[in-house]
């Protein structure tokens, strides 16, 4: 359900989270996260108004916070988000080959979405699985020890879901 369809529901959910904190502003990150989920993985301009309304903040404030954090998306993303770590620990073990394989298979560059709207490919900084390179996050679930040869199989699996 979108926020516009039931704004009271969104507001109740955000208020319940805000009640955990001495100051309701602390709920801005969780509220932005919920708004992003309801808007299909990104934060359109109206999301900042919805979050601001729920927490008594201005839309500009909410956008100012969102732009600071890497996990908030200010442009539409694909139905699935593929994020390849290219920091040094994965890099030493072939992360670039993994990223290249995703680019080749999907026909997009990092930061781009496939034309069918299915996948957004990103390169990301270290996501904390350094002992098992290369780490690939698929909608926030991490796959460890991914090699370039695994990429076609991973994409097939995701397409079949």
């Amino acid at each position, binding site marked *: 359900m979108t926020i516009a369809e039931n704004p009271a529901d969104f507001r109740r959910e955000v208020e319940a989270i805000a009640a955990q904190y001495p100051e309701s502003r602390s709920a801005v990150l969780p509220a932005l996260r919920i708004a992003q989920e309801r808007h299909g993985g990104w934060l359109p301009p109206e999301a900042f108004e919805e979050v601001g309304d729920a927490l008594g903040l201005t839309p500009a404030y909410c956008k100012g916070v969102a732009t600071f954090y890497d996990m908030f998306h200010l442009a539409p993303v694909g139905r699935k988000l593929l994020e390849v770590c290219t920091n040094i620990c994965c890099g030493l073990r072939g992360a670039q080959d993994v990223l290249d394989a995703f680019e080749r298979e999907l026909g997009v560059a990092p930061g781009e979405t496939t034309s069918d709207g299915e996948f957004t490919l990103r390169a990301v900084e270290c996501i904390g699985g*350094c002992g098992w390179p290369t780490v690939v996050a698929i909608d926030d679930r991490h796959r460890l020890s991914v090699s370039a040869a695994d990429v076609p199989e991973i994409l097939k699996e995701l397409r079949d879901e």
Partner: protein
Amino acid sequence: MSDVLVLAGADERDLTQLDEYRAVGGYAQVERARGLEPPAIIEELNTANLRGRGGAFFSTGTKMKFIPSQEQNPKPHYVCVNADESEPGTFKDREIMNRVPHRLIEGSLIAAHAIDSQHVFIYIRGEYLDAFESLRAALDQVRDAELLGGVTVVLHRGAGAYICGEESGLLESLEGKRGQARSRPPFPAVSGLYASPTLINNVETIATIPKILELGGTEYAKIGAPPDSTGTRLFCVSGNVVKGGNFELPMGISMREVIYDLAGGIPDGHSLKAVIPGGSSMPILTADQIDVPLDHDALRALDTFLGAAAVIVIDERACMVQLGLRVAQFYMHESCGKCTPCREGTRWMVQILEAVEAGEATHSQLDLLLDVCDRILGKCLCPLGDAAAMPVASYVVKFRDEFRAHIDHGGCPFGGESSLDGLFAPVDQHTHHPVLEEGVPA
């Protein structure tokens, strides 16, 4: 006695389950602690000489002593657990949260009692969805079993910002702001979360507390490399090794043992070139320095730090200019933008390193690079700038011939064969500040 303390029991039992954790003595220590006066707990931690496992190695008991009493400051007191582990090479806190979440919760409750606090916030890295779910499930069990003793524990997920692992950035973020570093003083102990007295400690530090109370500070202090580096660490081993992962061992084990005995050495007949001892922000060690014991004092003598105990092993295929560039790109991306030396300096570092890698730099620009590093070091509100300057300066100093070869050769001497060749940095996808267009300073 087993060497494993923080992860004790996790190989034999599913310690994510409350009854399993209680079967190995779980939550007995918080019960005992609640019968003690707070100063007695702090004394025990001081006897153990527990130091911060997040990287700064500051005395945990001393930090607790900085917190004023309720009489001195009647505002609510807060415990913040820093679970925003983001330093490249570090993945120990994630394992603690995933495998022994109850030990972290028990440690948090003991810390709360020690500073007379009723409120715990655990700030979990946004990318660690698994760790969040593990802690949430554990917390539900503890709540149902009514073990919280009136303390509220709130799990707060971050949203992707390295700077929020820095304590003042974390506090800003937890207050619902951009995670920019704060000016100190006042320190969090005096004016932290919501301008109230706040204790902030790393996950591993907090998860060590129950074991210290169980063993007693005196016994704990015999483990590791006393008097300064007592106890165990979770060493996170990554890079060019046969078997990466977390290994919990007493401090004082040698780097050689970690690389060759625990991690199985370097695969495919390659040779050790360098190793980073504590995470990507730490100065590098060369292959001839690996007999160093992994304790605070021994690494200080080599001008580096144990940091978050993240050991990144690098074999001979890596170009050190490319390594420096990728590290500088990371810190440029993660700089919060508040302090000029860090915000601008990291960009200058990237530009100069790009020129060196492309063979377009002059020898004097290597000195300029060191000068830029020097103008960042110690000149910012938080250590992020230092985290960029320290490692990169160490690469230039220790591998100067390789840097010079790029300039003399008119390009990378690896000729496209470096293990880090062409590594893409996500600086342009979501950059907070566009990279300056002007050229490299001469």
